[in-house]
Each structure stands twice: as structure tokens, then as C-alpha cells.
């Protein structure tokens, strides 16, 4: 029960931080995508929403983010549940955010929100495979899917996986940006379609969208910090502090990098993904395999390593 409460508290703190940091950062120039303001004080009255899917959308998106938070460790004991297939579990439950956007967009039944639903589904096809290929590298080096074990393996080998796998890290940043709908991949929430689903939800549903869309950025950045930046391990400071520093740093890096390039349409995202990211991801897996054969990133204390 305490782990559940800690998970919820960490999620709310992270979401609050993200929701406060991001609009301040983006300012008034350029599209703000998922960080654009949502009506929370007043409800939005629609003519013909689908009464089931319209309400299910934001709830399911929030559930996906909270489930993803479960396997993110802030210290060896401060983790909701150290699932033994943690990383795979994470990839799966974050997809519920896409499901929520699809349900909410279709359920609101306005042209703009339905367009948003289509675009979100198309974007899912673009990022899932590169994201998986980027995550495979740390799994291969740590010989485990458990997030705590991956952090421990990096601490024991005295090596962040960012060092031997820069390609994988860049791949993770790009596909992670696609997954969280931040610039330059914010077409489902773009201004020409009235910010997509954000404009047709108000009241508690708007608050849930704010939570889900800020939370997904937070959990994806936190997972990147866990698998590439050594998670909670670090000198002088306690583990949770390191984890927060790395997460926020990666968040800032992702948003800043994404703002340096032009917005991409979903068609451009798909061609980028299939023509560039997936081949590079396969190459990265090959390189990591070679590095492991050469003995890089081996955890000298693990029973299977160092042969």
C-alpha cells in the first residue's frame, strides 16, 4: 500500500513539475501542442458526443501514465513494484495514452477531434518500433528487463549506458519525443486542428488530459534516465535527488532539441521512422552486440557476466 501511495505521490509531483515547467519554457512563440492551455474552470458543451468513449478517453490515458509510473525506481526500495519484465511492461502500458487519445478524439465527435484521433493512431505506427529498438540495447547489456537491475548493472560497471550506446540514446530521444507528442512531432495537437482533443474537453476531463499529457513526458524522460543515465546512482547525493535531476535534465534536453527543428507532419514522421530510425536502430543493436562480445559494459558482479 505504501508503494502505491509513493507511486501516486511521485507521479503527481512529476506532473506538477512538468505542467509548471513546460509552458514557462515554451513561452508564446510557436505551437505549444500538448502543453497548450486546457479549460479546467468550465466544461465544454458538445452537441453530439459519444457518451461512453468521450468520458473513457481521458480516464484511460491517465491510467496508462499511472501504470507506467509503477516500475520507475527512485532508489532500490523506492519503486512501486520492481516488475521482473519492467521495461517491456513500460512500453506496453504507455500505449494506453494513445488509446485514450483515440477514444476521446472519436468520442468528442467534432471534425477536429476526430482528425486528432486519426493522427495519434498514425503516429503510434511511427514510433513504436524505433523505441523498442532503442530500449533493446540497455536490456542486452544489463541482461535483464527489470528497471532496478538495469540501474544496478550500470552502477556496478561504473558506466552509464549513454557512453557505449550514443546511437541508442539519440534514437530514444527522437522516438520518445514522438511518443509524448512534443515538438516537432505535435501534429495530433497542432493549432490548425484547434489543438485536437484539448479543445473539446473541459472541467475534470481537461484536468485529466493535463495530467496524462504532462505525465507521459515525465515518465518517458524518467525511463530514459533509468536506462541511459544510470538512474538513481550517483555520488554525494541521495538516490531520489539524482533521479529527479537526471529526469528533469533529460526532459529539458528533449524539449530543447525538439524546438530546434521544423514541425513534422505524420507522413514525414512515418518516412523518417521507416527509412532512417528503424535501420539505425537495427545497426545499433548490432553494434551493442559487438560491444558486449568485446566485454563492454559488463557487470563484474553479476553471475552471468564477465566470461
Amino acid at each position, binding site marked *: 500500500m505504501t508503494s502505491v501511495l509513493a507511486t501516486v505521490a511521485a507521479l503527481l509531483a512529476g506532473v506538477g513539475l512538468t505542467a509548471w515547467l513546460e509552458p514557462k519554457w515554451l513561452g*508564446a*512563440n*510557436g*505551437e505549444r501542442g500538448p502543453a497548450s492551455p486546457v479549460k479546467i474552470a468550465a466544461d465544454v458543451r458538445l*452537441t*453530439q458526443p*459519444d*457518451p*461512453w*468513449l468521450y468520458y473513457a478517453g481521458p480516464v484511460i490515458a491517465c491510467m496508462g501514465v499511472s501504470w507506467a509510473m509503477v516500475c520507475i525506481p527512485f532508489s532500490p526500495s523506492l519503486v512501486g513494484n*520492481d*516488475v*521482473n*519484465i519492467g521495461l*517491456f*511492461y513500460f*512500453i*506496453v*502500458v504507455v*500505449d*494506453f495514452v*494513445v*488509446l485514450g487519445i*483515440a*477514444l476521446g478524439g*472519436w468520442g468528442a*465527435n*467534432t*471534425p477536429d477531434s*476526430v482528425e486528432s484521433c*486519426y493522427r495519434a*493512431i*498514425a503516429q*503510434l*505506427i511511427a514510433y*513504436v518500433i524505433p523505441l523498442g529498438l532503442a530500449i533493446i540495447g540497455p536490456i542486452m547489456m544489463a541482461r535483464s*528487463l527489470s528497471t532496478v537491475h538495469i540501474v544496478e548493472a550500470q552502477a556496478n560497471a561504473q558506466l552509464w549506458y549513454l557512453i557505449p550506446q550514443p546511437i541508442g540514446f539519440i534514437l530514444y530521444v527522437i522516438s520518445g519525443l514522438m511518443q509524448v507528442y512534443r515538438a516537432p512531432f505535435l501534429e495530433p495537437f497542432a*493549432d*490548425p486542428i484547434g489543438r485536437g482533443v484539448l479543445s473539446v474537453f473541459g472541467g475534470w476531463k481537461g484536468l485529466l488530459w493535463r495530467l496524462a499529457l504532462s505525465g507521459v513526458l515525465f515518465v518517458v524522460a524518467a525511463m530514459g534516465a533509468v536506462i541511459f543515465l544510470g538512474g538513481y546512482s550517483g555520488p554525494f547525493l541521495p538516490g531520489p535527488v539524482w533521479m529527479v535531476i537526471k529526469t528533469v535534465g533529460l526532459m529539458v534536453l528533449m524539449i530543447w532539441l525538439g524546438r530546434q*527543428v*521544423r*514541425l513534422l*507532419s505524420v*507522413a514525414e514522421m512515418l518516412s523518417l521512422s521507416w527509412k532512417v530510425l528503424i535501420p539505425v536502430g537495427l545497426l545499433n543493436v548490432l553494434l551493442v552486440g559487438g560491444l558486449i562480445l568485446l566485454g563492454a559494459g559488463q557487470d563484474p558482479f553479476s553471475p552471468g557476466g564477465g566470461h
Partner: protein
Amino acid sequence: MPVKTPFLLEEATEMEVSPVLQWAAFGIFAFISIAGALGMATTMSMFRSGIFLMASFIGVAGLFILLLADLLALLQIMMYIGGMLVMILFMLLFSGDPGGGMMSTHMRLRGPEWFFSLGLARSPSGTDGNNANDSSDKEEDQRDQARDSHQEEGEKEESNDMSMFTPAKRGAAGLALGIGVLLIALLLWRPHWAVVAQMPDPDSPRRIGHLLMDKYMIAFEGAGLLILLGIFGAVLLQRPGKYPDSAHREELRAAVEDAPAPVKTDPLKPLGLDRDREK
């Protein structure tokens, strides 16, 4: 085959779950799978149908978790969320009335069809077209209601082909019920299944990986190659051919390649592509 490590209690990370909780979880997941399947078969909305199918499969994934097959459960969820969403997208693009508004307001629905079609595109005047107690003469007059976006894909003019409502439905439902009764009878009759008297391996992903990469490697890689060939075939089929497109497609292509709406406050310089030039 590697020697199977005995199941050690020290390795067990699963919490002991009380039988009441197990039964409750089983009831919930079973209800989700069955209700989802029923909704999939009876609702008038294409989109809802796909979502109900997804819910049904997620219920089945919950049953996998109850059997301690966590990896299989997550694989099931991952495959079906992505796959179903993409399938729904294509269903919407290729069908008239994907939202089921016309179907549900023009037919007298009852039973599960009425329930699972609740709230589909209710007419603005407030009368529910799918309420069985409603005097249904008004329905034809309310045809001219404002079209919502669920009907803008592939609109059709007055097609009376309600092919979703097939007379075979009753027979199919009877057949399914019969098979269900047969299966439950089999369970009650208790034939001697081969039951292995050992605890499941807590590290099932490792075992599955070893099986896929040792024993069934040829089948695994063969399936991968087959899927790769399928992808190549799809890419090959969609490449620009030497035959001219129909005029309709030409219009669509021109609409796609038109310059996008300019972003008001874009601090970046144009890329200098063809489509960025002012036409």
C-alpha cells in the same frame, strides 16, 4: 535443453493473494472478455466494435496474468492495442457510416444491440431514435439532422443495405451458446487433463526466450522472414506505378501535396523545399 532450476521459495517475488481476491479478479476479467465480445458483435458503430474487441482481448490478458504468464499477457495487450487501433483506422476509412449513427437511428434495436448502441449520434431534438418505446414515425422526418463528423467519411445516399444486420445473427448466437454449454459441460465432466505438478517458473521470459532461440529457432526466424517479405510486398505494391492514376486520386494527391497552412509564429527559416515556395 538446459536443466530446469527447481523453484526456490527465496526467489518468489509474487505476493500471496487470497482466494477471494483471485476469484474476484477472475470474475472481472471473464466479464470483460465476454461483455466485450458481445458488444463487438452487436453494436452498430464500427469504432465501438473495434474497441469492444480490444477490451475483450485485454480481459483475456488479465486471465493470462492470473495464470502467472505475465509476458504473454503483456504481449497480448501490446499486439492488440496497436493492431486494433490501426485496424479501426482502416475500417473507418473504408466504410460508410462508421459511427453507426444512421444504423442505430433507423432500425428498431432491442436487447444487447440496443444497449451497446446507446448514445450513438442522438438526434438533436432529443428523441432517442433507438428507444423501442418511441413512436418511430418521426424518425424519417429527422433524417435531415446536421451531419456530424462520424458520418462524413464515405457518405452514402440512402442505401437500404443494412448488411450488418444479418438474419444469421440468431443462428450464430445459438451456435456460440451451444459451444459454450459444451465446453462448460466438459469442465464439469472433468476428464483427466495432463496437469504438471510444479510451480510456474518466476522467470518465464528467460525460458520463453531460450525456447524461441534454441528449440524453435527455425520456425521463429522463418516467421520473421515471412513477415519481412510481406512488408516488402506491401511497399512494392504501393510504389508509384507506370499507369496513370484516376482523376479522383489526382485530386487527392494535389490536396495532399498542397502547401500546408503556415504556422503563424514560426521562428525558423523555410527549408527551401518545393512546397514551401509561395504558389
